[in-house]
């Protein structure tokens, strides 16, 4: 069963209350015949302002031909009384007398309030800075801009407080011209730009930005989404530099390791060549390897790879269980040695200590060992080290001629060759005397 037809007065009430636009038009005459009150509520036009007026009174001229040709449905723009346009979706129904009934719905109205709230929330809560600016021209040249709208994150990114309503030059007089040019380009061409730019005027910040035109072209308005990426860029730069440093460091480490292995092999060859007895070879080689290893450990203690001379000597003595005391004196100013110097000097100390332990001052009761050093300064910087090793009270009979010759070669040949040292090694009554004098810039033969 169908419901009874609605009365004319009921239909009239629907007609008056509807938020949709209801109109009767004459397509033949091209005029509005009747409009409902929704026209006034959403567009601002009263019934008396439209009835019998041509379509062109409110339909956008570009949309007129489609309006006239429309059959069932179409979209067109209607001009509001305040000059803005609204997009209306129409459906048509054909009645008696050549009249057409039209039902129109405001496309923006159905979305706008919900959408607007959604977008407002988005702009308020997002971490990116957002603003709408309006460019200011003088003699056709962009010279400044005014902030129309900004979001809360805006000032976190660029440090500008209370920007709305003020111009950029008011807040940052030194703002670079390049900003005017790029925003003016967006405003005049309508091209959206994504770019990165820095600004000394805004505290040397680097920004990542997306600028696009909003509003009518003649308004010269640009919306800008942006982010301060200064720290990110600096962190990236620091990371890149640290990667470069690491690369160099790895290269150096490789070089050092291989060099050290080659030295170890050469020391082994020399040890084998100068000892007849296999047990002696093992004993001597292990001792020398140990000395090289100890220096490496001390080198690793400081970031700069420098070695404290006192540590070097004490570690060498400690490795054979000797501490300083009444019979063993160690003394001299604090001095840091480069790893090159420490390596060869450490090996020399090892030879001297081993010799003293087997045949000299560290073996004989009542004998004394003095290890002392001094430093020459050049303009306040250490430039030469003088090291003395003096054994006393060792009976002449215990003196031993230079063991396998390795120690003597090391002190008399290798130290001068490797470190530009001047050395003296004597076996005289009372024990060994050795003096080593070497430049501290690490380069033998250089006049520095």
């Amino acid at each position, binding site marked *: 069963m169908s419901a009874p037809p609605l009365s004319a007065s009921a239909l009239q009430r629907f007609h008056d209350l509807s938020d949709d636009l209801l109109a009767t038009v004459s397509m033949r005459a091209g005029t509005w015949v009747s409009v409902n009150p929704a026209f006034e509520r959403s567009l601002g036009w009263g019934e008396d302002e439209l009835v019998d007026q041509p379509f062109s009174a409110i339909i956008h001229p570009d949309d007129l031909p489609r309006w006239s040709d429309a059959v069932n449905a179409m979209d067109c723009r209607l001009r509001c009384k305040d000059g803005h346009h609204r997009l209306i979706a129409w459906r048509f129904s054909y009645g008696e007398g050549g009249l057409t009934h039209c039902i129109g719905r405001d496309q923006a109205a159905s979305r706008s309030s919900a959408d607007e709230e959604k977008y407002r929330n988005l702009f308020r809560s997002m971490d990116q800075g957002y603003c709408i600016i309006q460019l200011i021209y003088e003699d056709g040249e962009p010279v400044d801009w005014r902030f129309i709208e900004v979001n809360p994150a805006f000032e976190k990114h660029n440090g500008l407080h209370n920007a709305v309503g003020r111009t950029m030059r008011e807040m940052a007089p030194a703002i670079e011209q390049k900003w005017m040019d790029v925003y003016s380009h967006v405003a005049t061409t309508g091209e959206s730009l994504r770019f990165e730019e820095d600004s000394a005027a805004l505290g040397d910040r680097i920004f990542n930005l997306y600028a696009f035109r909003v509003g009518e072209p003649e308004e010269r308005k640009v919306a800008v989404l942006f982010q301060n990426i200064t720290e990110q860029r600096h962190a990236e730069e620091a990371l890149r530099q640290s990667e470069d440093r690491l690369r160099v460091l790895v290269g150096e480490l490789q*070089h050092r390791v291989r060099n050290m292995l080659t030295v170890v092999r050469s020391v082994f060859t020399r040890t084998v060549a100068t000892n007849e007895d296999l047990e002696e070879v093992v004993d001597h080689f292990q001792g020398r390897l140990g000395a090289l290893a100890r220096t490496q450990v001390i080198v690793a203690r400081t970031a700069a790879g420098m070695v404290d001379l006192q540590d070097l000597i004490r570690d060498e003595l400690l490795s054979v269980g000797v501490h300083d005391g009444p019979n063993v004196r160690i003394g001299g100013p604090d001095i840091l040695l480069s790893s090159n110097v420490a390596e*060869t000097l450490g090996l020399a100390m090892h030879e001297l200590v081993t010799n003293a332990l087997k045949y000299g001052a560290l073996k004989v009761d009542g004998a004394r060992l003095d290890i002392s050093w001094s430093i020459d300064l050049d303009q306040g910087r250490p430039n030469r080290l003088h090291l003395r090793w003096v054994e006393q009270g060792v009976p002449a009979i215990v003196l031993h001629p230079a063991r396998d010759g390795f120690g003597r070669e090391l002190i008399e040949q290798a130290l001068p060759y*490797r470190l530009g040292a001047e050395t003296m090694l004597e076996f005289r009554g009372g024990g060994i005397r050795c003096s080593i004098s070497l430049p501290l810039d690490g380069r033998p033969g250089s006049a520095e």
Partner: protein
Amino acid sequence: MLWGLAMSETFKDKRILIVEDEYFIAQDIKRVLHQAGAEVLGPVSTLSEGMCIAEEGRLDAAILDVNLHGQMSYTLAEQLAKSHVPHLFLTGYDDWSLAEPHRDTPRMAKPFQPMILLAALERLLSAEASA
């Protein structure tokens, strides 16, 4: 040593410069070259000493450590290349840590084996002789 004898003709009276800042390594190389019958110039441990020898004497080949007390031996390598003296790097560095123009210079990795070093030197000398 057999290989020493076998190669003695190749290296006989050849003047070979050794630039290496580690004393014991330098002595090792010197011994190997002596045994092969070569005449050794140096060894020297600094770039400036190496440059002096390269400038004043007739050289048949050179063995260069790359890092000499923190100084790179590239300038010496360039000097040698200019006067057509074949040379090789004896180094702990990998190719990629050498400066770009020198990556094609023959390179012998440390630690080196005496026989392989001699073989590399022989190749350098014969390439120069046939050039």
